C-alpha cells in the first residue's frame, strides 16, 4: 500500500528517530480525529505521537516541512494513501501552496533591487508576517538562482540569497531605527533593540529557507529532497566533521548530557550493594533488642572512584573532539576521585589547573588553546615525543587506581612511536584506554599507527559521536 504516513515514518526512522509500531498506530488514529485542513494541528499531532524526545523535534520539523509542504489533504484517505497530491501548477515556479499570499513569479521580476530592499526593511520594521513572506519570496526569485533538477539540499541557494541581501547591514539599520524611535540611549535599550533586530532577521532567514525548500519540493518531490536535507540527530553528529551550526548544537547537547550522566552514575553508585557487616554498629544496635543482633548493620561500600588522567591530542583535526571529551570528563568530575588533564601537539602541558575552581568547564576548554604550551618544534602532532615527555615528568605519580585515557587519531606524521612508553604506563596504572575519533575503517591508513599502540591498551574505542562518548564514559565511572 502506498501510504504517505508510512513513507513519512520511514523517513523519520532513516533520520534516526526511533518510531515504534504502536506509535505508528497512534499517529494513524490521531489523524482520524483531527481537522486535517489545519496544518499546524496535523504537525503537532504527528509530533506528539511519533517523537518522544525534545532534541529530536528540529529533525522532525524539517522532515514534516519537506513532506507536507505542498500537499493539501482534506481527508484521511488522502493522508493514508495519497502520493499524487502535489499540485500540478506547482511546476510553473510560482510560490507554491495556497497560504503564501501574492503571486510570486511574474510580478517579482519587475521589482528593482532597491525596491526589494525597501520592502524587506519595511516588513521587518513593522513585523508584518505577510509582507515578510512576500519579500522572502521576491528575494529567492531574484537571488537564489534555483536550477531545476539539481540534487542539492538548498544550503547553497540559501547562502546565495542571504549574501545578496546583506543582512548584517540590514540588522544594524533596524536596530538603529528602533533605537531612534525610543530616543533613549542607555545600554539596556540599545541591547534590547539589537536583540529584537536579530530576532526579526532570524525570522526572515527561516522564511527564506522555507521558501527555498518549497521550491525544491516542487522541483524534485518530497522523498528525494528529504534525503538531501536530512540532518543527523545531535547525538549522532560526527564531532570531527561538524560544521559551525552542528558544533553549536553539540555544545548545547553537552550540558544536559553531562548532567544526565552524572545523575545516572551517582544513582548507580548509591544503589550498589552494601559492604560487609559492620560489627561495632550491629552490636550497638543489638542493645535495644536485649543483645540479640536482629538488625544487621553494614559498612557503606568502599567508593571505587577511579582517578582519571586524560592525555589529549589538540592538534588541528582532532581538537574539537578532545575539547568535548575534556569538557564531559570535567563536567562529571564529581564521579571520579581525581581528574588530571594533559594536552599535547608535539610538546605536552598539564591543563588541570584551568579547570580548578571554574564553574563552567566550557570556559576552561576555551582557554586551553591560548594558555597551554604544547608546541615544542613544528606544530605537527608527535605522539611518541608527547608520551616520552609525559613519562619523564609524571610517570612516578601514577598508581594502580589511575585510569589513563588517550584521545587522538594516532596520526603520528611518521615520527617515532615510542611504544615502550605506553607499555610502561600500562604497567604502572590500572588501565589505558584509547579513544579514536576516526571511523574504524580509517585506522592504520596513511600515518595512523593505532595498531602499534593497541596491544598496550585495555581497549581502543571508536568515539565519533556524543552517543559513543557518553556510552564510554558511563562505562568508565
Amino acid at each position, binding site marked *: 500500500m502506498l501510504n504517505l504516513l508510512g513513507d513519512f515514518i520511514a523517513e523519520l526512522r532513516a533520520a534516526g528517530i526511533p518510531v*515504534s509500531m504502536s506509535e505508528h498506530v497512534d499517529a494513524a488514529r490521531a489523524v482520524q480525529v483531527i481537522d486535517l485542513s489545519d496544518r499546524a494541528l496535523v504537525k503537532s499531532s504527528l509530533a506528539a505521537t511519533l517523537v518522544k524526545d525534545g532534541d529530536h523535534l528540529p529533525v522532525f520539523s524539517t522532515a514534516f516541512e519537506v513532506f507536507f509542504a505542498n500537499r493539501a489533504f482534506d481527508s484521511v484517505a488522502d493522508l493514508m494513501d495519497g502520493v499524487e497530491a502535489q499540485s500540478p501548477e506547482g511546476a510553473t515556479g510560482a510560490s507554491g501552496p495556497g497560504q503564501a499570499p501574492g503571486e510570486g513569479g511574474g510580478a517579482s521580476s519587475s521589482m528593482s533591487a532597491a525596491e526589494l530592499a525597501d520592502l524587506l526593511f519595511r516588513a521587518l520594521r513593522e513585523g508584518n508576517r505577510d509582507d515578510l513572506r512576500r519579500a522572502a519570496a521576491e528575494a529567492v526569485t531574484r537571488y537564489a538562482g534555483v536550477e531545476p533538477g539539481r540534487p542539492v539540499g538548498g544550503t547553497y541557494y540559501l547562502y546565495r540569497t542571504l549574501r545578496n541581501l546583506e543582512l548584517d547591514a540590514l540588522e544594524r539599520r533596524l536596530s538603529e531605527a528602533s533605537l531612534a524611535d525610543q530616543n533613549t540611549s542607555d545600554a*539596556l535599550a540599545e541591547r*534590547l533593540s539589537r536583540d529584537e533586530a536579530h530576532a526579526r532577521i532570524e525570522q526572515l532567514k527561516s522564511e527564506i529557507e522555507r521558501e527555498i525548500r518549497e521550491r525544491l519540493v516542487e522541483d524534485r518531490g518530497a522523498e528525494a529532497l528529504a534525503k538531501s536535507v536530512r540532518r543527523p540527530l545531535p547525538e549522532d553528529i560526527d564531532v570531527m566533521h561538524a560544521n559551525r551550526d552542528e558544533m553549536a548544537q553539540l555544545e548545547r547537547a553537552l550540558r544536559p548530557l553531562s548532567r544526565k550522566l552524572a545523575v545516572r552514575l551517582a544513582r548507580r553508585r548509591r544503589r550498589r550493594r552494601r559492604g560487609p557487616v559492620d560489627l561495632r554498629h550491629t552490636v550497638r544496635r543489638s542493645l535495644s533488642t536485649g543483645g540479640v543482633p536482629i538488625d544487621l548493620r553494614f559498612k557503606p561500600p568502599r567508593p571505587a572512584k577511579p582517578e582519571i588522567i586524560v592525555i589529549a591530542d589538540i592538534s588541528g583535526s582532532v581538537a574539537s573532539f578532545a575539547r568535548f571529551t575534556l569538557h564531559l570528563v570535567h563536567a562529571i568530575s564529581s564521579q571520579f576521585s581525581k581528574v588530571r588533564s594533559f594536552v599535547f601537539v608535539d610538546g605536552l602541558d598539564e591543563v588541570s589547573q584551568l579547570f580548578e575552581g571554574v564553574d*563552567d568547564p566550557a570556559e576552561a576548554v576555551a582557554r586551553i588553546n591560548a594558555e597551554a604550551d604544547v608546541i615544542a618544534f613544528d606544530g605537527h602532532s608527535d605522539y611518541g615525543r608527547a608520551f616520552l615527555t609525559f613519562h619523564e615528568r609524571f610517570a612516578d605519580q601514577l598508581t594502580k587506581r589511575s585510569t589513563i585515557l588517550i584521545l587522538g587519531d594516532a596520526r603520528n606524521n611518521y615520527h617515532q612511536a615510542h611504544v615502550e612508553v605506553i607499555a610502561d604506563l600500562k604497567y604502572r596504572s590500572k588501565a589505558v584506554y584509547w579513544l579514536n575519533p576516526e571511523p574504524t575503517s580509517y585506522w592504520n591508513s596513511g600515518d595512523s599507527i593505532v595498531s602499534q599502540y593497541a596491544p598496550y591498551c585495555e581497549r581502543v574505542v571508536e568515539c565519533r559521536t556524543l552517543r559513543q562518548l557518553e556510552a564510554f564514559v558511563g562505562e568508565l565511572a
Partner: protein
Amino acid sequence: MSALDPREELAKRLGLLHVPPVRFDSPHEIQKLLAENDYLSDEAIASVTFLADRLAKPVLVEGPAGTGKTALAQAVADSIGARLIRLQCYEGLDESKALYEWNYRKQLLRIQAGRPEGSAEEWAHLEEDIFAEEFLLTRPLLEAITATDPVVLLIDEVDRVELETEALLLEILSEYQVSIPELGTVRAKQIPMVFLTSNNTRELSEALKRRCLYLYVGYPTIERERDIILARVPGISAVLAEQIAQVVRSLRTLDLKKAPSVSETLDWARTLVVLGREEIGEQDAADTLHILLKYQSDIERATKELLGRSKPVA
C-alpha cells in the same frame, strides 16, 4: 482498517456501560477554556491535550523547569471542573506510596474481633474477608482509577523515580487498571486524563514513552510571554509587559547556568509593578536582576552583557 474509536475500544475493555463523552470539541475550545483559567496555551499544547482526550492516552510533558508543566494539568482540571489528584515522584517512591497499601492495623482488628475457632472453613472465610476493598488504603494512582467524580491525574517529576519503579506506572498508563494480587484487577470506572511531567534529568524508558503522547513545553515566544505576563500580573501596563518579555528573551540567549523561567519572569513583573514602574530603566534592571537570576555568576554576566557594566550594583 477498523474505524473503532479508541475511546469505545477502551470503554469496552474496562467494561464501562457507556462510552464517556469527549471533553473537548476542538483544540480551539481548549485554548479558550485554558485562557479562562489564566493559562495561556499555544497550538501544540492545545492539540496534544485534545488528542489525549480523544485517544484516551496519557500526556508526557517535558521541558525546562518553570515553564508551566504542572500548571497545565491544574488548568485542565479547573477548566473541566475535575479534581486534580497529584502524585509527586521522588527517589524511593514505591508501590505502597503510589498505588495501594493494605491497612494491616484494621486487618488485625478484624482478626481479633472474629476469633476463628480453628476450623479450616472459617479461616478461609476470614482470609477472604480481610483482603477486601474495605481494608485497602488507596494511594493516588488507585484513587484516580476508582474515583467516580471527574478527575485529572498528575504524576509530577516522573524522572525522579528509579527506572525500576517506572514499571509500576505502565499498567495504569496503558490499561487504566491496577492488579492487586490478593484482590484481582481493579478497572477504572472512567477514563481519567493523565499528565506526567519530567524535567528531563534522565532518559525515561522506552516503554513509558511509548504509552504516552509527548509534549515539549519550551520557553514561550516573546508574544506569548507578553500575554502571559498581561494575564497573570494584574495592573501591569502593556508597555512594561512588552519590555519585560524582551529583557527575558535577551537573557535567555546568554549562556547562563540557569535561564530565567516563566514563573521567575512573573515574579519580576510583579516586583516592578509593586515598585510602581511604567518602564524598565537601567537602574531598575540592575537592582532587581536577582529576582530573575539565581546565581551570582549569572547576575554578573547579565549585568555586563545587558547593561554594559562590569560590576553589579549592590
